């Protein structure tokens, strides 16, 4: 399988919308044709070739090499193939994507996986705020697919999430799973304040109890939930998350947010006292 490679020539003065470079949009185009795609750089349009050294043939896989955090909307709305980012990515990575895979070796900015409907997002570094969140003004965020973060996420991870799965190996900022409608989010590190605020349904699985939960969450007691075995079995290809299986199935279950229905659950794994 050949690859189309875009290497950023020099640091950027402005943010760039990278959504024209998805496998289906560049399919069948030679490198020199891809180099003539017009991009907005501030208030003027430039050829992609001016900003990137472009090599290879357009195929199923696109590789973006950049240290810049200004490449926004990489893989936005993509519906197949794969994108590998060697370095960092900007905001709205994989925004609205339907299928395919995006892998980023570095850190990503705001709203990665925002409004995502399917496909896989794998981040080796850290994610910014609103991971898997909603487009501005929308009431529902991520609607399908999976996001796996090896590092940490910012505030509002899983905000307004509707369906799908988010796995975070590191820590989360404040307001994790806020306004969550449904779906599953797992955090192995520490969550910040106001976790689960305005959560309507959905499951947030934690291995460390947050310092506090909103007062609108009620303790639902300890439960032995066998589905956790099934869930963690699904992570066997993800070494960072294999440890979840070691935690056992005993969880402290909190229900909330009572201010908006109270059907959401926060499951906090606890040492097996038996």
């Amino acid at each position, binding site marked *: 399988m050949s690859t189309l490679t875009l290497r950023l020539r020099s640091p950027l003065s402005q943010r760039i919308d990278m959504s024209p470079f998805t496998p289906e949009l560049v399919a069948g185009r030679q490198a020199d044709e891809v180099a003539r795609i017009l991009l907005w750089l501030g*208030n003027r349009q430039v050829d992609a070739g001016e900003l990137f050294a472009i090599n290879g043939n357009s195929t199923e896989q696109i590789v973006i090499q950049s240290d810049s955090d200004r490449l926004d909307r990489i893989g936005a709305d993509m519906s197949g193939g794969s994108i590998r980012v060697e370095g960092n990515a900007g905001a709205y990575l994989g925004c609205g994507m339907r299928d395919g895979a995006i892998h980023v070796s570095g850190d990503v900015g705001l709203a990665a996986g925002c409004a995502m409907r399917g496909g896989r997002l794998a981040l080796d570094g850290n994610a910014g705020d609103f991971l898997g969140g909603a*487009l*501005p*003004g*929308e*009431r529902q965020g991520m609607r399908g697919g999976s996001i796996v973060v090896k590092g940490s996420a910012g505030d509002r991870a899983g905000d307004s999430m509707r369906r799908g799965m988010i796995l975070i190996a590191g820590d989360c900022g404040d307001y994790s799973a806020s306004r969550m409608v449904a779906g599953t989010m797992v955090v192995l590190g520490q969550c910040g304040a106001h976790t689960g605020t305005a959560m309507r349904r959905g499951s947030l699985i934690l291995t460390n109890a947050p310092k506090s939960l909103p007062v609108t969450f009620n303790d639902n007691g300890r439960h032995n939930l066998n589905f956790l075995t099934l869930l963690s079995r699904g992570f066997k290809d993800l070494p960072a998350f294999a440890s979840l299986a070691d935690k056992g199935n005993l969880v402290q279950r909190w229900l909330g947010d009572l201010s908006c229905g109270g059907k959401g659950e926060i499951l906090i794994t606890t040492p097996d006292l038996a």
Partner: protein
Amino acid sequence: MLIKLEGGRIYDPANNINGEIGDLYVRDNEIVAAPGDNETVHRTYALAGKIVMAGAIDLHTHIGGGKVNIARTMLPEDQRGNVMAKGGLTRSGGGHAAPSTLAAGYRYAEMGYTSCFEPAVLPANARQAHMEMADTPMIDTGGYAMLGNDDLLLQLIADGAEQQTVNDYVAWTLQATQCIGIKVVNPGGINAFKFNQRALDVDDAHPHYRITPREIVSKLSRALYELNVPHPLHVHASNLGVPGNYLSTLATMEAAEGLPIHLTHIQFHSYGTEGDRKFSSSAAVIAEAVNRQANVSIDVGQIMFGQTVTVSGDTMAQHANHNHAHPHKWTCMDIECEAGCGVVPFRYRDKNFVNALQWAIGLELFLMVDDPWRVFLTTDHPNGAPFTSYPHLIRLLMDRSFRNDLLGEINPDAASASHLGSLQREYSLYEIAIMTRAAPARILGLTDRGHLAPGALADITVYHQHEDPEQMFANPMLVFKAGDLVVEEGRISKPVKGTTQVVRPEYDPAIEKEIGRWFERYHSISLHNFGISDDEMAEGIGSRVTVHPCREGRP
């Protein structure tokens, strides 16, 4: 600069010119008589085979004011899904149902419109409305101030104030808000909603003030008549959207007591209760009433299938409809206790019985009202559909077979419940020119536009002759705004700014004392800061004022 438009086919109903081939001359911003032989024509446009009309006028389109901005904010997907990048001459914008100011101005001009009127300027929001309209490029604008749900007027009427006092208050409102007309929305009903009332028919007493919508309409229409304001009272009648509301509509016409009255988006007010679903067309009854009463004019508020957003001051009706919101989000709010506002996004579906019948009712009204001088082409943008559907609507009116084809596609029960299929009428270009140019200018008292006689403002639209009226009206060949060539082949060629159209009837300034006391006691700002001056319009808000004369002579 002298321009000659040579050999076009001219449709100028105000001057009884029906498709005659002739020349027009434009000097600077005015149409002028043919110059002498010794004068140099600087530019000649050869328009053989082209259609020439005055610039179109939309007398009812929600393009400014608080509620449109709420709709824009509420529907980010409408902006995101319809992005308009900046061009060489134009700035960026977007939106389909609730377009940004820039997108609205450009698109209106690209369709040959040169003047548009915002029908719901809340006095307390007038500044905001004028700012938005000033930011809408290409077109001249104007607004109708909303009265009839404000506590001051209701209190005055309840206290039995003399007509003269109401007249002074109306005239003061026009001056303070820089408006060209007065609109009443669900007379008394928006106010009654705040007293927990969920319906208020024409002869129902307001729960607090004990006055009826009939009295409000009567007082206000008389006030405008006695003040010699050209545009009659612009009425959004009671019971919008409620099956059986045609009776309220007929009663509202009566309430004007023979004085001029304009009933707006009457399609939403022409529903009966016949049939299995207790929802039927009463277009025939309404059209007959309009045909019979020369004091009544209407605009239709045609609906078109697809996504739009309904924005209205009628909190009562919007609250009743909120369950139909699509996408499911909506708002209703009170604004400064003067009136209300409701924003409910909506998708009209052609397979839905009610929506399909609404579509047919609008077209029935167009086709059954005989006098094109008293029926205006509107979709109540964006309530029935965005204004960008006007060319499609014109085709529906001009092309019977096209209309019947579409009738075959809508909900079959609705199609068979409607008389539309039996209506033979096809509008002519002359009649389209009446209802989109000459008649709106006449009913608004705009003597300087809507026609092509010497002395008129050089707002001119030139169309290619085309089999398909939709194509023809969507992409004019040339549009002149005040003598400037602003659109070529349906694309902006020169961005310009319009002015704000107002009328200034005289009033006894003593009324300001009474209003001042009211402001002092109840209002959020002082009277002194309320009114908008001409200087503020020109320098702060950014749109100069054009004052149009009132009718002459006392009635």
